């Protein structure tokens, strides 16, 4: 580690404070317990802008007031804020007066009212009365800049936080400032809807009510709400969030900065998908399939009896299919019921990450300070673990070399070749196209390795590379699981049993199948198993997902309704807090009772899952599991004629929850196929044209989109539009 930075001492409002050299004045003042008010200043958005001038302070020796946010502490500096300087006080009051000139004072019906920095700072530093007698500037309002965000240009104080986020953090470039001077406005580029994975962050960033959530708009006043600190369980990142509730319902989800995990950002899925809790087909009571009567709602005790009966009849011929969204405690209860109570030993795990990577764990934030970042795998990082994409972008902005190797990578590689790439990079003499990268990886002080693909062995391959590179402190290797808590679920399953098992891949009848969660219901392997099972016990949130093959359906809970532990992709255990009441028993209560009937004592109260996990046994060689969908082997893309190697990815905006939030519909992947530039022009296909994808008997018609980053011979489609297609397809104009 480098030497600690030099300390400097400055005086702020007659208080002396010692801070590391280079510390900003705003932060230095905070250390001395003094507030320097700001609007535009937000270090997470890049270098200070100095635009709003709210932070004007007097600095001894300088004739003019200075914007504190743009300065850093220098030894001996004497700073006076509005508390001890009449000039600074006049400066700050003046800025607030200017801001308020054109700001509509519609606080009573503004969503921000009550939690508004402009209100707060006006109270503390602003003028008591208005001297403005002329007309305020007016604009049409509100303007929907997307189905999720409404823009009120009259309230906007032009701090440029939103445009800086769009340009310098998410790098989507969609929010821009138009016009000049007092006519300046915020707009989307070319007035297109703001369609980006992280668009909702601009609502958090807005210091006034100019950017508001259409989902939350007019739904609550700040003094009627409770904010519950919890964790988002929509993807394996596990962003920390505040869940806002009003009258027992979740009204919104806000980012809650965890500097090591999310840096205070949250994707739109985490932010806006919470309304799935109130979906029209949400199950609220147990359902039982009764001969001649179909699916009938039954009391909980009856459901318990039916489950007991069905499982008892199956003996040890039981398989459990996890969805990867369960808490560790839920997975533990279910695993112990199955393994210890029923004597069965087969699970379908959506993820089964290799623990070999645990030797190279590092916080996600370490990516930002890496010198070289390598991303391998077929899946876009943005779709799989969106925040990781932001960390990678931050690394690149900071000067790091960020290289993706894969079907859409800067270095093109055929689908399924990630393991081979890792091996090649670890080898002493890598092939020509990887030589420079291999050298850079070896020479770098800090390296971040990311595996983004559907292959549970990825961790092992990545660990091999990490070991070859002798990664040390400051470096990290990250495997991105498919599901939010896939890692925790796999750990819970392994901890609950000792490894005898039956082969689920045969086609003999299965005694019983337990399907845990809506996402598991969408796994084609689960559907196939259900056909073979005499009894299917399902937990699900949504009737339309569960109705098909289940005999007993228990109403499932959403992550906002659960207490428990989830393990994110870093291997970090984080606590979910129950934000709102579930409609009935939660899964844990049900399975604890069920387990007791089979002689297994499961504590229905959430335990400290963290401690449990700490003592996990290492993975044994004979893993009695059915892991995630088989990884495809390395394939050389065909490319000739109209033949393409099909890469399908799971879009972030997909799945049972997203589909139930109408405001998110525009974010879902378009029905299109991405084609490489060279192949598209050879086949005379342009973006927007209709094409047909064929494999065997199956055909799909989609719109074409030319993506010049795709490797030749590779076509890419979101999973939900690739239904039934094989890995190799023929593409021609419709």
């Amino acid at each position, binding site marked *: 580690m480098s030497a600690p930075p030099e300390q400097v001492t400055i005086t702020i409002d007659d208080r002396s404070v010692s801070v590391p050299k280079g510390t900003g004045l705003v932060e230095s003042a905070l250390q001395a317990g003094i507030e320097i008010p700001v609007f535009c200043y937000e270090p997470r958005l890049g270098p*200070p*802008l*100095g*635009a*709003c*001038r*709210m932070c*004007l302070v007097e600095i001894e020796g300088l*004739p*003019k*007031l200075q*914007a504190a946010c*743009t300065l850093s502490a220098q030894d001996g500096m004497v700073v006076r804020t509005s508390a001890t300087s009449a000039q600074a006080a*006049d*400066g700050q009051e*003046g*800025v607030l*007066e*200017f*801001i308020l*000139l*054109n700001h509509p004072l519609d606080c009573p019906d503004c969503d921000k009212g009550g939690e508004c920095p402009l209100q707060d700072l006006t109270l503390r530093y602003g003028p008591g009365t208005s*001297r*403005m*007698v*002329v007309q305020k*500037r007016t604009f049409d309002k509100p303007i929907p800049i997307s189905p999720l965000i409404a823009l009120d240009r009259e309230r906007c*104080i*032009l701090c*440029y936080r939103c445009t800086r986020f769009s340009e310098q953090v998410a790098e989507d470039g969609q929010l*821009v*400032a138009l*016009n*000049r*001077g*007092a*006519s*300046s406005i915020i707009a989307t580029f070319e007035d297109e809807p703001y369609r980006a994975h992280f668009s909702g962050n601009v609502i958090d960033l807005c210091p006034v009510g100019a950017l508001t959530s259409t989902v939350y708009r007019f739904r609550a006043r700040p003094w009627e709400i409770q904010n519950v600190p919890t964790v988002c369980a929509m993807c394996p990142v596990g962003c920390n969030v505040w869940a806002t509730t009003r009258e027992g319902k979740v009204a919104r989800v806000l980012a809650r900065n965890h500097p090591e995990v999310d840096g205070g950002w949250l994707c739109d899925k985490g932010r806006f998908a919470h309304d799935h809790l109130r979906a029209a087909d949400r199950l609220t009571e147990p359902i039982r399939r009764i001969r001649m009567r179909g699916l009938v709602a039954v009391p909980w005790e009856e459901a318990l009896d039916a489950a007991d009966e069905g499982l008892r009849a199956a003996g040890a011929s039981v398989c459990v299919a996890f969805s990867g969204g369960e808490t560790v405690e839920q997975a533990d209860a279910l695993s112990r019921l199955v393994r210890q109570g029923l004597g069965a030993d087969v699970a379908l795990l959506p993820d089964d990450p290799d623990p070999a990577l645990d030797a190279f764990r590092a916080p996600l934030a370490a990516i930002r300070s890496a010198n070289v970042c390598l991303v391998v795998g077929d899946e876009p990082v943005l779709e799989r673990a969106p925040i990781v994409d932001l960390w990678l972008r931050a690394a690149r902005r900071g000067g790091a070399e960020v290289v993706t190797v894969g079907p859409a990578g800067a270095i093109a590689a055929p689908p399924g070749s990630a393991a081979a790439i890792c091996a090649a990079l670890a080898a002493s003499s890598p092939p020509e196209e990887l030589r420079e990268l291999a050298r850079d990886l070896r020479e770098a002080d800090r390296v971040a390795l990311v595996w983004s693909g559907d292959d549970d062995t990825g961790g092992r391959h990545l660990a091999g590379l990490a070991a070859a590179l002798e990664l040390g402190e400051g470096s990290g290797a990250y495997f991105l699981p498919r599901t939010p808590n896939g890692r925790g679920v796999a750990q819970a399953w392994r901890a609950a049993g000792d490894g005898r098992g039956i082969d689920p891949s045969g086609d003999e009848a299965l005694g019983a199948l337990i399907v845990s969660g809506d996402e598991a219901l969408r796994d084609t392997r689960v559907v196939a198993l259900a056909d073979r099972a005499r009894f299917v016990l399902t937990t699900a949130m949504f009737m339309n997902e569960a109705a098909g093959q289940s005999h007993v359906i228990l109403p499932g809970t959403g992550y906002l309704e659960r207490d428990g532990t989830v393990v994110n992709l870093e291997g970090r255990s984080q606590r979910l807090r129950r934000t709102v009441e579930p409609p009935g028993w939660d899964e844990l209560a049900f399975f604890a009772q069920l387990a007791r009937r089979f002689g297994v004592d499961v504590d229905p109260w959430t335990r400290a899952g963290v401690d449990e996990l700490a003592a996990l046994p290492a993975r044994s060689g004979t893993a009695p599991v059915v892991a995630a969908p088989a990884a495809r082997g390395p394939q050389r893309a065909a490319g000739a004629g109209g033949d393409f190697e099909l890469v399908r990815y799971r879009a972030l905006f997909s799945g049972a929850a997203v589909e139930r939030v109408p405001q998110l519909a525009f974010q879902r992947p378009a029905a299109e196929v991405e084609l490489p530039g060279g192949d598209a022009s050879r086949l005379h296909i342009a973006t927007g044209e209709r094409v047909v994808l064929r494999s065997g008997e199956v055909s799909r018609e989609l719109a074409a989109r030319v993506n010049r980053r795709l490797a030749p011979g590779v076509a890419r489609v979101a999973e939900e539009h690739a239904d039934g297609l094989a890995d190799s397809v023929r593409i021609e104009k419709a």
Partner: protein
Amino acid sequence: MAPRHVVFELAESADVTRLSDYERAGGYESLRKALAMEPAQVIEELLASGLRGRGGAGFPMGRKASFLPKPDQTPKPIYLAVNADESEPGTFKDREIMLRVPHQVIEGILISSYAIQARAAFVYIRGEYLTEYEVLRTALEEALDRGLVGANILGSGYSVTIVLHRGAGAYICGEETGLLESLEGKRGQPRTKPPFPAIAGLYAAPTLINNVETLATVPRILALGGENYAKLGVENSSGTRVFSLSGNVARPGNYELELGMSLRDLIVGIGGGVPGGRQLKAVIPGGSSTPVLTADELDTRLDFDSMARAGTMLGSGAVIVIDDRCCMVQLALRVAQFYRHESCGKCTPCREGTRWMVEIIRRIEQGAAGQGELDLLLNVCDRILGRCLCPLGDAAAMPVASYVAKFRSEFQRHIDEGGCPFRGTSSLEGVLAPVDEHHARARARIEVPA
């Protein structure tokens, strides 16, 4: 005594717009001389000359050049940016320099680039200056053909590229960091300093930014020798400047004068004074952003220090003469409208303050203002002054505050009499700022003959 010309000396007796003519007059000799010197020696000459920037701020050019790191001190390339975005109302000197001595501008760019070892020089030229752009481009092509620009200039081993870049009509892009942002293809808004452009300028690389006139003076300094140039003018204001004389004066135009002559020498002696027997009322001495001087202050000398002592600035050297027909409130309105229109919108005091100033002045001019509003106007100016991100806010507040300070009774009469005391006879009556004129025209109805 005939005024001593430096910038226009070579163009005095001949047309030197063509390369051959310019060379015949001695052009590009200074470049040869410079290339034979060490870069540091060239900067020494500039320091010795005492040349101060001619764009408006008057920062010594040699010192600015010496702030840049040397090529072996930075991993980045070094750039020169040429500010040819002449937009200050009343200023029209750079356009004449570019039209009459385009090769001298290029020569100055080359010498200065050599002095700082720049890899490329970017000329940011005002979008409306189409003719000037074409003249400069023709000259640049000639220079390229002759091997004066580009790789291995005159066999010296030094190479530099010159890029001409046309602006798109924004005053703020004449502010040095706004210019850099615009050059980079971004929205033309100033940057916060530090970091200063000498450390992180264009594309975050060390950048020297100079005005056209400053650079056009450089070859002459090398020809004369820095110390000889420093003998021209007065202390702290060496050399000559091209003054743009305009307004209510008999002979408006650009005049190159040694620094230190009085305003009276320029306006009365050279410009022929106010025509038609009218009285001189006020003088804007250095472009519309500078505080006004009254007829009593006509003996103020045209040099940096004298102007500062008089509470104003030499600015861009644009002297605007105002006679007794002009309503100072209307003048304030026009000036304020200009700066409101040109405010980039980045920082609060300028964006909101300039708009508010216009509204208050309009109310005063219309006779709708209350008694407190004159002090309110001054207070608004105070709250803009020195609190903005860049000098544009000051450029609006300083002149307007000076009009009120020096012609307060005239403002007061507007309020007391409920309207303009000129009763429609002011020379600015009905003359709107271009932006408002534009809006007024847009509202005009088009009559279609039956």
